[in-house]
C-alpha cells in the first residue's frame, strides 16, 4: 500500500517474517520493537515500544502508525495499546494497536475483515469537496489493466472511480472509503466489520461477483449501470464482443477438456482467492466449456462429502469433486483423475508438475474483460503444448 504510514511489529524480531519483505512498496516503512528474552521474561516491553513510536514520529513523520501485537507479548499479557494510545495522544499522530497474535485462531476472512476495517477507520477524511458521486471496488481482484478498463467504462458517466480496495488503494483512499457513494463488494459476508462501518457512513453497498471471465465481468458492469443514469462508455461493447469471440473460439477447440481446479489451498491474505468460498474462478473455466472437477483440500473422510456438496450448492454449484488431505497428497489426487489440465496454488507446483499434467496457477488468471483474452491464450498455449 502506498502512503506515509508505519507498521510496528511489537515482539521479537523474527515475528516480522510473517510478512514478505521483498514485495510491495512499503517494506522500508516496517519496524520491530526487537524485544529480547530478558525484556519478555521481565515484562519490560513498554519502554522499547514507546521509544520506537517516538522515534518514528520524530524522523519519518507518518500519517498513521499501526502496531501489531505478536504471540510472545500476548503470552505475557502485555497491554501495549495503553502505550500506543498515550504516544498517539502526545504526538497527535493517529495510531492503532491490534492484538494480531497467532494464538487467536481465526479464519482468513476474519483477519482480512479486521485489517480492512482498521484501515478504513483510521482518521476518516471528510467527503470530497467536489462531491462527485463515485464507486469503490472492494475485495475485487486488482491488476493495472483491469482497473484501467473499469475506469474507462466509467468515462462519460457521472461516477468517479474511488479506488480498488485493498490492493490498488493508498492510505488516503482508505480514509476516503467510508464516504464512497457506491461500493461494489465481492463478498459481503466476508467483511462483516467493514460492512457494518460502511453501512453507517457510505452510500449504497452492492454485492457483485468476482470479475473473472466474461459472464462474471459483465454481471459486475450490469450492476454498475444501475448506479448511474448515464450510459456506460461504448467501449464496453467492444470489449464484450472481443471477449465473447475469444470464449467462443476457445470452446470450439477445447470444450469438454477435463480440468482439475484446486481450492482451499491458500493460507494467505489473497482475498480474491478466498472470497466466495474460494470459488471465484469456477465460472471462468466452466464458461470456457472445460469439464471442471474441484479438488478440495480438507478431510477425505467420506462422511464429509455431504458437507462439501452442501457448501458448493450454497454457491450455486453442482460439480464433481475430489478431496485431498494436504498439499503432499495433491499429486495422487491429480493422477487418479485423468485430467488434461490442472489449476492449483503455486506453492505446490512440485507435486502438481510431477504428475505430468499441464499446470496453471490460480494467480495467473486475470480479471475483467481484458483478462479474458489473456486467460484464453494462456490456457490454449498450455493445452496445445501438452499435445
Amino acid at each position, binding site marked *: 500500500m502506498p502512503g506515509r504510514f508505519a507498521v*510496528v511489529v511489537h*515482539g*521479537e*524480531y*523474527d*515475528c*516480522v*517474517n*510473517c*510478512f*514478505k*519483505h*521483498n514485495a*510491495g*512498496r*512499503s*517494506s*522500508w516503512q*516496517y*519496524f*520491530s*520493537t*526487537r*524485544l*529480547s*528474552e530478558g525484556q*519478555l*521474561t521481565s515484562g519490560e516491553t513498554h519502554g*522499547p515500544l514507546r*521509544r*520506537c513510536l517516538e*522515534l*518514528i514520529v*520524530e*524522523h519519518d513523520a507518518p500519517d498513521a502508525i499501526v502496531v501489531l501485537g*505478536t*504471540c*510472545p507479548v*500476548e*503470552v*505475557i499479557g502485555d497491554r501495549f495499546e495503553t502505550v500506543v494510545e498515550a504516544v498517539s495522544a502526545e504526538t497527535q499522530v493517529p495510531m492503532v494497536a491490534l492484538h*494480531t*497474535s*497467532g*494464538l*487467536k*485462531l481465526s479464519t482468513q476472512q476474519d483477519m482480512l475483515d479486521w485489517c480492512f476495517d482498521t484501515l478504513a477507520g483510521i482518521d476518516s477524511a471528510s467527503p470530497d469537496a467536489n462531491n462527485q458521486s463515485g464507486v469503490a471496488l472492494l475485495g475485487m481482484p486488482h491488476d493495472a489493466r483491469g482497473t484501467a478498463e473499469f475506469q474507462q467504462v466509467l468515462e462519460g458517466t457521472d461516477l468517479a472511480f474511488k479506488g480498488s480496495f485493498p490492493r490498488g488503494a493508498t492510505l488516503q483512499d482508505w480514509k476516503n472509503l467510508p464516504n464512497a457513494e457506491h461500493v461494489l463488494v465481492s463478498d459481503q459476508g466476508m467483511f462483516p466489520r467493514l460492512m457494518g462501518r460502511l453501512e453507517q457512513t457510505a452510500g449504497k453497498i452492492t454485492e457483485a461477483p468476482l470479475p473473472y471471465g466474461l459472464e462474471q465481468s459483465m454481471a459486475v458492469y450490469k450492476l454498475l449501470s444501475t448506479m448511474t443514469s448515464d450510459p456506460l462508455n461504448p467501449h464496453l461493447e467492444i470489449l464484450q464482443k472481443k471477449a465473447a469471440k475469444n470464449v467462443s473460439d476457445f470452446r470450439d477447440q477445447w470444450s469438454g477438456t477435463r480440468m482439475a481446479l484446486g481450492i482451499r489451498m491458500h*493460507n*494467505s491474505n489473497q482475498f480474491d482467492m478466498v472470497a466466495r468460498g474460494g470459488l471465484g474462478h469456477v465460472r471462468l473455466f466452466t464458461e470456457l466449456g472445460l469439464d471442471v472437477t474441484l479438488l478440495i483440500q480438507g478431510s477425505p473422510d467420506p462422511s464429509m462429502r455431504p458437507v462439501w456438496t452442501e457448501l458448493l450448492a450454497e454457491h450455486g454449484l453442482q460439480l464433481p469433486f475430489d478431496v485431498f*488431505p*494436504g*498439499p*503432499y*497428497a495433491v499429486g495422487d489426487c491429480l493422477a487418479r483423475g485423468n485430467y488434461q489440465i490442472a489449476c492449483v496454488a*503455486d*506453492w*505446490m*507446483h*512440485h*507435486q502438481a508438475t510431477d504428475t505430468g499434467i499441464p499446470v496453471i496457477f490460480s494467480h495467473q488468471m486475470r480479471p475483467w474483460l481484458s483478462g479474458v483474452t489473456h486467460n484464453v491464450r494462456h490456457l490454449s498455449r498450455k493445452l496445445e503444448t501438452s499435445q
Partner: protein
Amino acid sequence: MSAEELEHFRLKSLDQGQFTGAFIAVHAVSDGFLMMHCGVGCKHKATSQLTEHDFGRSAEHEGWTEVGDAELIEGAAHRIGPYIRSWYDRMQPGIIIVNSVTFLDLTGDDIRDSADMAGKSVPCPVHFVRVPGYEGDLFSGYAAVVLAVARGLDWTQQTGRATDVSIAGYFFDRYEGDNLGNLTQLNSLLKSIGCTLKGTLFGGTDYATLQDTAQAGTVLAFPLMHPYMRPLKRWTKRTPTPTDLPMGIEGTAHWLRTVASATGTNATRVEQVIDLQRQRTQQRLRTSRMVLSGLRVAIFCDLPQTVGLLHVLQDLGCTPVLIGIRGHTLGGESELLEAVSRTHASLNTDVPILENPSIHRVREHMEKLIQDKEVDVLIGSSTEINAVATLDPEIALHIDHGAAWTGCGPKIVEFGFPCRNYHVVRSSPTMGFGGVLGWADRLINAPRLWDTWRTQPS
C-alpha cells in the same frame, strides 16, 4: 544519534530468523520433514518465504502442531508425539526436525524431551532444534540443523583417508541450477587435487545418503559453521578445517590451498592446478572484461559471499562502491576485513560498509549513489532490489548508460535469499573457477532496475 537508535528498530535487509533458516536446512534434505511446534503466524516463516525462492521443489514437507490459546493454556508439548506419528505415517520422511518458538519456550514445557520421546515411536531420527526469534539469524538457524544432523550421524566408524572430505555448512537453499553448479564445482575442485567428496551438509540428498558424510577423514567447515567449531568437532569427532567460500580465481585458489593443507595433498600439484585454471579462466574472461571493466558495484550479501564477490569483482575488473553485510551471526565489518586480509581479496578502505543494514538504509544509500551517478550494478536479494525499486525512477532517467540501452538505473543481479525473479534451470555455479565465468555472464546480461524501454537518454 536518534537516527541510529531508530535504525535499530527498522526492518533489516535480512531479518529472516532462525526459524526460516531451520526450514531451509530441512528443505535441503530431500526427505526431511519439519514439525513446527508454533502458532499459526509462524508457518509463513517457513512456507511463504521458500516457495517463491525455490522453483525446483515446493515446500510442503512441514507440519504444524496447531497451537492456539486454548492449547497454550492447557500445555501444548504433549501434542508433539501424536503429530509426529501421524505425519510420519503420511510422509515417511528420512528425518524429522522439531522446532519450537519463543512463546512456547516461555511456558516452560520440556519440548526437547517431548520430541525425544516422540522420536522413539517412529522409525526415523527425530531431532529438536531451538530457534528462538529474539536471537540468531537465517544462518544460525541453518547451522542449528546441520549440528543436529551431524550429531545423529555415526562418526564412530573407521575414519576414512584424509583426502576423503565432507563439507559442513554448505547453504543449500533451493533445488536449482545454482546449487547444482556449485556442488559440481566443489566436487571437481576436490577431485582435481586428489580428494573425494563423501558428503555435504547439506546438498539436497536424502537422509540415507547423508550417512556417507561420516566416512570422511576431513571435515571442511564452511563459513556458516565457523561460530560453531566446538560443537561441530564434538559431534563429528574430527577437528574441522574452517574454510572461506571458493569464489573468484584467487578465492578459489585460497580454498584449494586450505583444503590441500588439511588433507596433506601435494602442494606442488595444487599450485599446478591453480595455475592452469587461472590461465584458462582469465583467457575466457578477456572479452567479458572489455565490457565489465570499470563497473561500480553495490553489494548486499552475507559476509562469506561478500568476500567471495570481492574476489569475483577483482577478476572482472569491477569496483565495489558500497557493501551491506546481510545478517549478523557471521560477523560485521571487522570480520569482513579480517576475511578480506586472510583470503587476499581487494577492498579500498574508503568503501562504506553497512553492518546488518535496514531496508530503509539500503534504500537511502542507493538513492544517493544513483543520484550521484556513482553506481552501475546492484547485487542483492529481492528484498534490497524491491526496496530500491520503490525509489522514484526520475532520479536515474537523466543518466546516459551508453548507446542501445533500455531501462534506467543500475543493473540488478538478484542473489541471495530470497530470490523472486531469478531462477536457474541449467547448471550455473557461483563458486569455483567456473563460477567466475557465470558471474561475468550475469553481470553482462543483467537488466536495469527500471524498465523504461527508453533507447536513448532525453
